[in-house]
């Protein structure tokens, strides 16, 4: 085992090892610092050369390793986790349940880092599950009703997602005649699958839950506002990218052309980009706005992936662009989320400075500053293809309108909601926030040297085109009124769905004969209770009472048949 391989192994294990600190009171006191250090090996790993290690005893024979894609993801994930932990150090100082937060934090981190170095199905699925389920604890950390509600939605959708993923993985494995579990090999086999659309759909939807595809996005705006701020940052910045990462790893982009499916993806992506902007604008919580913004941004990336399905040859160019975009979005969104945490803690700092700081990621996200410029330009550059629908590029340009609206709304909400009696800004929070803001300002070309991106400054001629849409939007907002007159609750379509479920339940309940339900029964009614079509207890009893008759009949039939045999 080389040093690099050891390091590879060490990276996801470190947070788990740090969990041991909980065994000792002194260690427990150290936990927030340790949590901050935990992603450091990952950061270092992302700068190391590509490598892999085969772990034949682990699961069904695992392969861990990195390449450029992994490195980029690892890098921004590690950065995000480090700075969010730093932020959390101060944020949770007075939280008496901080310990359990950090416990789940470390577990989620393990999952997130682990999945980024997994190159086989089982390890990936394992780490993905670990991340998903641990993050549930982060979401409901406050234990307030809205948190519990959000948590439940998150969990239900996550479980459904997991199952879709599992189905997709089964089918993917079948395409390779069950000969391999390694992503790289599966990818090459997948196009030969009989019903290619089925595994692809399963996987797209399954991971789409994480990536916030429209109609699977409801948990995002619910969970982000209720989670503690550092958790929201990693949820939206890093974990949402796990869905994207999974798509990149498993789906055979660049290997197969599926125009219909690509077109559908583009539509879905654009839908997300625009509608999420609209709904987000109608939110009242800054974090909910950011969540919709994440959905909107992920929509853009979905668009790009759809384009790759239509035109597989462009994958070479598209992949780096996507990496840049993911990087940019993760850092910017992380910084924005952290800044929400500052609105109650700015004593001693001029709020104006904070607003200036917040403007960096906000403008970057719109695409007019810092890393955003590079990301947007690269994306547009790649999508400028003749064989793609001609309306694609303008639509993407127009989507900046949605982002602008969202950022405007976000900033105004920040301003409006800032605490009149702020508390002091702890150094750690300051550091964490500022770190991300600075990284955001630096841009990907500095931080991802291996992609050989053109420097943002060299593309200055394109700037005006980037400024156009946001500018017009701002003007429109100015004239039409900055504040929406009505609101859509965060989570939008989840409410009609819940209503629908309730209606179905009551209707079905009316169909079933009612029995007196004891107090205890009601109290213990399982929280995921589904409508009871018939009273199964009764049915079962009937079956049992007829069982003996059944036995007798069976025996008789057998005897008669044996006679016939003779």
């Amino acid at each position, binding site marked *: 085992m080389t040093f690099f391989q050891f390091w590879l192994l060490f990276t996801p294990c470190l947070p788990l090892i740090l969990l041991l600190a909980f065994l000792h009171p002194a260690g427990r006191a150290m936990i927030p610092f340790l949590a901050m250090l935990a992603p450091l090996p990952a950061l270092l790993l992302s700068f190391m050369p590509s490598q892999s290690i085969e*772990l*034949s*005893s*682990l*699961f*069904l*024979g*695992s392969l861990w390793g990195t390449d450029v894609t992994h490195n980029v993801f690892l890098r921004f994930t590690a950065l995000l986790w480090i700075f969010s932990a730093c932020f959390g150090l101060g944020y949770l100082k007075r939280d008496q349940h901080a310990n359990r937060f950090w416990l789940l934090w470390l577990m989620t981190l393990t999952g997130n880092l682990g999945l980024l170095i997994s190159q086989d199905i*089982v390890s990936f*699925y*394992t780490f993905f*599950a670990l991340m998903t*389920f641990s993050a549930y*604890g982060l979401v*409901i950390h406050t*234990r307030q009703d809205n948190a*519990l509600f959000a*948590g439940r939605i998150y*969990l239900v959708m996550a*479980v*459904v997602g*997991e*199952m*879709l993923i*599992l*189905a997709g993985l*089964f*089918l993917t*494995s*079948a395409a390779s*005649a*069950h000969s391999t579990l390694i992503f790289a090999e599966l990818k090459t086999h997948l196009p030969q699958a009989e019903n290619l659309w089925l595994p692809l759909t399963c996987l797209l939807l399954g991971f789409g839950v994480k990536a916030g595809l429209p109609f699977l996005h409801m948990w995002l705006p619910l969970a982000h506002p209720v989670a503690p701020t550092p958790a929201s940052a990693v949820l939206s910045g890093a974990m949402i990218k796990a869905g994207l990462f999974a798509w990149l790893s498993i789906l055979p982009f660049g290997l197969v052309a599926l125009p219909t499916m690509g077109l559908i993806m583009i539509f879905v992506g654009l839908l997300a980009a625009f509608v999420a902007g609209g709904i987000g604008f109608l939110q009242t919580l800054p974090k909910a706005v950011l969540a919709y913004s994440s959905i909107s941004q992920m929509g853009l990336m979905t668009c790009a992936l759809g384009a790759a399905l239509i035109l597989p040859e462009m994958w070479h160019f598209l992949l780096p662009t996507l990496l840049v975009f993911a990087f940019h979005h993760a850092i910017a969104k992380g910084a924005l989320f952290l800044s929400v945490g500052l609105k109650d803690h700015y004593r001693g700092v001029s709020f104006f400075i904070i607003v200036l700081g917040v403007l960096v990621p906000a403008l970057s996200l719109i695409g007019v500053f810092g890393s955003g410029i590079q990301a947007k330009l690269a994306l547009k550059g790649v999508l400028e293809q003749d064989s793609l629908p001609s309306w694609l590029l303008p639509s993407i340009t127009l989507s900046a309108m949605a982002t602008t609206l969202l950022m405007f709304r976000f900033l105004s909400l920040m301003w409006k909601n800032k605490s009149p009696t702020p508390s002091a800004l702890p150094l750690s929070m300051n550091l964490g926030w500022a770190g991300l803001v600075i990284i955001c300002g630096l841009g990907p070309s500095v931080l991802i040297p291996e992609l050989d991106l053109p420097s943002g400054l060299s593309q200055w001629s394109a700037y005006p085109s980037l400024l156009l849409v946001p500018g017009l939007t701002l003007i429109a907002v100015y004239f039409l009124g900055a504040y929406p007159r009505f609101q859509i609750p965060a989570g939008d379509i989840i409410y009609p769905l819940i209503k629908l479920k309730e209606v179905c339940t009551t209707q079905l309940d009316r169909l079933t004969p009612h029995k007196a339900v004891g107090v*205890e*029964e009601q*109290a*213990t*009614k*399982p*929280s*995921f*209770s*589904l409508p*009871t079509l018939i009273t*199964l207890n009764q049915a*079962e009893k009937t*079956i*049992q009472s007829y*069982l*003996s008759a059944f*036995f007798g009949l*069976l*025996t008789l039939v*057998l005897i008669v*048949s*044996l006679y016939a*045999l003779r």
Partner: protein
Amino acid sequence: MNIMSLLPLWVLMTSFLAAIVIFLLPEERHRLRSTINIGAAIIKIGLIILLIRLVAQQETPEVSLEVLPGLSLVLRADALAMLFAGLSSILWLCTTLYAIGYLENAPNRSRFFGYFSLCVASTMGISLAGNLFTFLIFYELLTLSTYPLVVHRGTPQSLKAGRTYLAYTLSGGVVLLVGVALFYAFAGDLAFGQTAQMAEFTHTSPIASAIIFLLLIGGMAVKAALFPFHGWLPTAMVAPAPVSALLHAVAVVKAGAFGIIRVVYDVFGIELAWQQGYLLPLSLIASFTILYGSWRALQQTDIKKRLAFSTVSQVSYIILGVTLIGPLGTIGGLVHLLHQGLMKVTLFFCAGNYAETLGIHKIHELNGTGKRMPMTSAAFTLGALGMIGIPPVAGFISKWYLGTGALAAGMDWVIWVLIGSSLLNAAYFLPVLYRIWFLPQQGQWPHESFTQWRDTIPLLLIPALITAALSVAAGLFAGSDLSPLSWARLIVIREYQP
């Protein structure tokens, strides 16, 4: 006959002799009894390890005794036998430890441990049986030795449960008896593995063969709790926790499932069974049971009842795996035999811990137990996650092989069964976990004891932790040579390449 070929007998005898000695010991000799029990369990594990090594070297030690003209009791250690025997021996040790802690200060311990050991002896016999006749003998012995355990408490409910249990299992036993007798009357005295002769018989008289198959499977389905023969299992939940653990995880349901495995692979041979179309109905029933069991589990408010229905569902995974032709499905079924055993035993241990330590029997009473009993709750969580099929717990490995096996066998619909069942599993386990970890304690615990311990007494805690750790290890290191998976692979290699 050298000493090694007698090993199967000794494996059986360790628990059998232990049972006899325990019966003869006076009730008050608790310490001595525990020592004997644990000692026998450890010796057995040692012997099993020896046997496994022998079997891995392509040997099959065999002991036989002619009991009736042309009919022998045969104990034979083949690879499949060792799978089940290994599971039983490990869980015997764990359950014994647990039971010693669980029954501390309880009456009737002599009787309990005696029958308990007898039960394990029968399980050993079932696993090592070299022909259907031997299997039948130990299968019935198992029924007999578990009955006193089910009614151990002596309450009206437990007596009623015992009656239900007997009604089901004895009827099943009778059906099995007819099946086995028919088999011997017509197909002749065939040891396990002589599938070529069975194929010949099947081709000459297909109807008789089908009837034999139906009877054999029907008889075993009762113990394996296949729908509609599952009714005894939830009722039997009144038994003490170690019994539920043993019944559900190892002895009874597994004996049924193991029997079905034997019938399909070693009596008929899977290719034959597949060609004759026996397997499809079986897989449909198993699938239905999987979904039905999960669905029913969802509606239970009692912890053990929920676990019981979960068992109904989970054991059918094994049977489903058996019906999937091709190595992958087979591996899935076989390995789930072990994995489910480990995970379910963990869950029952934990349920028992909750009941013993805090007096909790209902799910809604579990709120906040994570804080009071963190280790138990952690073990419970691992078991539950494994049941849902979340890696790295072993359940995922089984599920993966079942899913891929189904696709390889061309039965794509099975994966939707698996997915549906996983969803239901999540729906009935996650709320429990939620209550344990995320809800605050509500009022007093119903009946708290062991207050001096942070969690619960070590004898109750340690077995649960061991099995939980084993079920994680079985999943985490599934690829290693020592894992259940690799043993299942070995079996499958021998099955498909005779």
